[in-house]
C-alpha cells in the first residue's frame, strides 16, 4: 500500500471536514483563476486593440483621453484637428487634379481618420474610411502573423456610398442590426436628450467578425456621410460667408421645392416621373452653385451649395434609389467642403518603425496636434491604474487561498489528537518518524491539489457562465477553457494558471508542516497506551 493511499484514506475518514477544507481551497483558487483569466484576457485584448498602427494623432490635450476615446471608444473626445492637418499624412489631388504628397506622406503607410462624437444606441459611431479594415490589423497571432479584420457578413464599405456603415460584432448583435438595415445616429454620446439625426440614415453593408477588441462595440460609418449630417460641418468665417442675397433667396426657394419633391417621392405621393424632374432641379441647383459661394443653411445644403469648389470628391450617382436612405434617394451626394471638415483623430501606420519617434517628436513640438503611442498609453494605463486594481484583486484572492490553506492546517491539526493512536500503530508496525510525517504532508498536499483542481474547474465554469456578460460589457471574447494569458516567468512565458498548482503545493507543504511535525514527534508508547 502506498503512502498516498494511506493519506487518502485518512482524508476519506474525515469526509465532512475534508470536503469543507477542500471547498474553501477550491473557492480561493477559483477566485484567483477568475481574476487572472478575466483581467489577463481583457488586458491582452486591450493591448491588441492598441496594436496594428504606430501613432494616434489628435487635438492637444490628455494623451490618455485621446487613447481612450480613439482605441477604446471610452471617455469624451477632445477637440478636433483641421482636415488640412490630416492631409499632411496622405496623398491627394489638388484642384487642378495633380497628385500632391502631404508633408509626412512619404513616411506613412496608412493614415486613417477618425471622426467621433456621435453614437447609435449605446455604441460609439466612428466616421472613417475603408482603409481602417483594409490597411490596419488588430493584434497578432502567437507566430507574429497580424490579425486582419474579417467580415462575418457583407463587406467593407465603399467611399462612394456615403451612407454605408460597418458594424462591430457585439454592436450588431446587441443593437439587432443586420445587413441592409437603416439606422439613424445620435449627436453626442450616451445622452438621452441628444439630438437624433432622423433624416441621416445609414445602412449596414458589413458586419465585422469578432475581434475581441473594443472595435466589436463600435459602429463605423463612411466619413463622407458622417460629415453630411446636420451640425457636423464646421461653421465658416465671415469672409467665407459672403453671398449674393438675391441668388441666395432664390436658391433657398428652389431647395425648399426640391426638399418637398424628395419627400413626395419617398412617400410615393407623386408618379415616378417626378424623379426626373428632381434630377433636373438638382442640375439647376448645381449650376447656381457653380456661380456662387453661398453659406449653407444646413450641412446637406452646404454640400449642395459648394459642390463646385471641390475637385477631389466626386459626387456619386446611386444605382438603386429605392434602397438608398431617403436623403439621397433622388440624386447625387456632394461631399462636405474641406474647409468645413475636421477630424477627431488620425491613426498612423508608418512604413518603418523608426519614423514613429521622429514623427512623435515633430508633431508634439507643433501647435496643431499631439501624437501618442497607443501601446505606451495602454501599458501606462494598465500599469498605473488597472494594474493596481488587478494587484489588489490578486492579493485578495491569494489571501483567500492562504486562509483556505490555514484551514487545511487547522483541519489536519485538529485531527491529530484523534489520529495519535493511528500514528502510534503505524509506528509500531515499523513506520519511521519521517514516514508518518510524510503521510501527513501528503494529506495536506492531496487536499490542496484536489481543492485546487476543483477550483480551476470551478473558476473556468464561472468564467464560462459570465463570459457573455464580459463580452457584452467589454467586447472581449472569453471562452470557457481559455487560460490566463502567459506572463514572463523564470525566463519563459507561461500562463499563471500553470504556476498556480505548484504554488498551491508549496503552500500545502508549508501549512501541513505543523501537523506533520506533531506526527513526527508522536510518542509511540504513549500513543499506543491511549484508549482506542
Amino acid at each position: 500500500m502506498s503512502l498516498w493511499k494511506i493519506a487518502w484514506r485518512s482524508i476519506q475518514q474525515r469526509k465532512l471536514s475534508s470536503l469543507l477544507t477542500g471547498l474553501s481551497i477550491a473557492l480561493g483558487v477559483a477566485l484567483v483563476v477568475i481574476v487572472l483569466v478575466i483581467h489577463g484576457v481583457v488586458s491582452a485584448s486591450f493591448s491588441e486593440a492598441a496594436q496594428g498602427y504606430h501613432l494616434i494623432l489628435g487635438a492637444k490635450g490628455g494623451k490618455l483621453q485621446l487613447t481612450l476615446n480613439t482605441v477604446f471608444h471610452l471617455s469624451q473626445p477632445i477637440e478636433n484637428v483641421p482636415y488640412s492637418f490630416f492631409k499632411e499624412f496622405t496623398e491627394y489631388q489638388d484642384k487642378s487634379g495633380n497628385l500632391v504628397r502631404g508633408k509626412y506622406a512619404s513616411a506613412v503607410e496608412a493614415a486613417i481618420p477618425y471622426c467621433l462624437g456621435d453614437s447609435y444606441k449605446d455604441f460609439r459611431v466612428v466616421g472613417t474610411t475603408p482603409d481602417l479594415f483594409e490597411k490596419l490589423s488588430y493584434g497578432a497571432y502567437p507566430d507574429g502573423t497580424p490579425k486582419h479584420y474579417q467580415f462575418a457578413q457583407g463587406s467593407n464599405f465603399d467611399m462612394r456610398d456615403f451612407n454605408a456603415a460597418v458594424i462591430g460584432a457585439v454592436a450588431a448583435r446587441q443593437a439587432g442590426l443586420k445587413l441592409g438595415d437603416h439606422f439613424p445616429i445620435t449627436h453626442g454620446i450616451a445622452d438621452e436628450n441628444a439630438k437624433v439625426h432622423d433624416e441621416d440614415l445609414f445602412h449596414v453593408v458589413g458586419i465585422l467578425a469578432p475581434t475581441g477588441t473594443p472595435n466589436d462595440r463600435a459602429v463605423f460609418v463612411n466619413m463622407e456621410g458622417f460629415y453630411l449630417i446636420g451640425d457636423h460641418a464646421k461653421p465658416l468665417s465671415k469672409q467665407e460667408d459672403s453671398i449674393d442675397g438675391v441668388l441666395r433667396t432664390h436658391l433657398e426657394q428652389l431647395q425648399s421645392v426640391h426638399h418637398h419633391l424628395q419627400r413626395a417621392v419617398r412617400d410615393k405621393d407623386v408618379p415616378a416621373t417626378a424623379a426626373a424632374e428632381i434630377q433636373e432641379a438638382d442640375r439647376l441647383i448645381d449650376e447656381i452653385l457653380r456661380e456662387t459661394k453661398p453659406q449653407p443653411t444646413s450641412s446637406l445644403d452646404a454640400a449642395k451649395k459648394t459642390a463646385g469648389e471641390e475637385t477631389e470628391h466626386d459626387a456619386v450617382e446611386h444605382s438603386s434609389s429605392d434602397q438608398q436612405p431617403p436623403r439621397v434617394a433622388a440624386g447625387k451626394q456632394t461631399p462636405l467642403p474641406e474647409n468645413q471638415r475636421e477630424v477627431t483623430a488620425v491613426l498612423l501606420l508608418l512604413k518603418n518603425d523608426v519614423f514613429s519617434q521622429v514623427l512623435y517628436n515633430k508633431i508634439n513640438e507643433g501647435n496643431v496636434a499631439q501624437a501618442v503611442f497607443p501601446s505606451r498609453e495602454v501599458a501606462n494605463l494598465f500599469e498605473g491604474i488597472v494594474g493596481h486594481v488587478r494587484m489588489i484583486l490578486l492579493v485578495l484572492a491569494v489571501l483567500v487561498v492562504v486562509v483556505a490553506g490555514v484551514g487545511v492546517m487547522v483541519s489536519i491539526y485538529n485531527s491529530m489528537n484523534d489520529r495519535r493512536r493511528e500514528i502510534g500503530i503505524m509506528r509500531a508496525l515499523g513506520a519511521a518518524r519521517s514516514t508518518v510525517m510524510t503521510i501527513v504532508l501528503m494529506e495536506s498536499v492531496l487536499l490542496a491539489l484536489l481543492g485546487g483542481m476543483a477550483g480551476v474547474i470551478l473558476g473556468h465554469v464561472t468564467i464560462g457562465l459570465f463570459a457573455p456578460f464580459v463580452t457584452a460589457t467589454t467586447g472581449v471574447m472569453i471562452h470557457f477553457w481559455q487560460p490566463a494569458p502567459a506572463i514572463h516567468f523564470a525566463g519563459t512565458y507561461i500562463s499563471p494558471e500553470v504556476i498556480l498548482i505548484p504554488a498551491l503545493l508549496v503552500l500545502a507543504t508549508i501549512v501541513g508542516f505543523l501537523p506533520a511535525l506533531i506526527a513526527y514527534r508522536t510518542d509511540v508508547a504513549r500513543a499506543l497506551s491511549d484508549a482506542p
Partner: protein
Amino acid sequence: MLRLQNIRKAYVEPDGSQLPILEIPEFHVAAGEQMVLVGRSGSGKTTLLQIIAGISRPDSGLVQIAGLDITQLSEAGRDRFRAERIGYVFQTFNLLPAFSALENVLLGMTFTRTGRDATRSEDLLKRVGLGHRLTHRPTALSVGEQQRVAVARALANSPKVLLADEPTANVDTANQQQIIDLLRETCAEEKIALVMVTHTQEVTSQFDRVDRLAEINQVRPSVTGTAPTEAGGSLS
C-alpha cells in the same frame, strides 16, 4: 533468537526521581520457541514487549534478536528492524478503521523495504479464516475476526519474533482458543519465536514454556498499585 541481558528501565517522575519498572538480568527465547509470560497488571509486561520491539529503549542492557543488538541501532534502524523482523499483536487489535481487512494486512508490509505482497496478505487472511472478509472494514468485523486480522498483519512480513500483548483479553472464550491456536500453529509452521504476555493463567497450559514476569523481573512494584510507564500510562 531473542536474548535480553541486564535490562533496566525506569520511569522519571516529574520531580526528577526515578521509578524503576524493569530490571531483568537475563531472558532468552529460542527460535521457534513458544512461551508465555505471566504477570499481573502493572508488572511491566507491555514495557518489556515494547523494549523487545524497539519501540522503547531500555536505560541499559542488551536486546539481541537474531544476533543483532537493537539497542545499538538508531531509531530509524530500529523502526526498519521492527517492520521486517518483529510481529506485534496488540490487546486492542489496533486495526486502522479506514482500511479494509486486506489493507490492514498490507499496511504491515508498507514500511518494509520489500514492500507489499497482496497475494501473501490474501493467503494470510484465508489462513485465519477470513478469506471472505477481505474488503470488510474493522467496524464490520466481529471482535474475534478483528483479532484474527491483527494476527495476519503481524505475520505479514514473516517475522523472526512475534510479540502478543494479551491477545485474548478482549475476546470471548470461544474466540480466545481460536486466537491461541492460530498464533501457535502459524508460529510453529514458520518457526517464529512467540512471546505472549498475559495476566491470566487460563491459556498457559498450552504453551511449552511459561515464565512468570515476577520471577524474572527484579523490580518489586509498590503495594499501592500499578507503576507508571515511561510515557505516563499505566502498565499492563
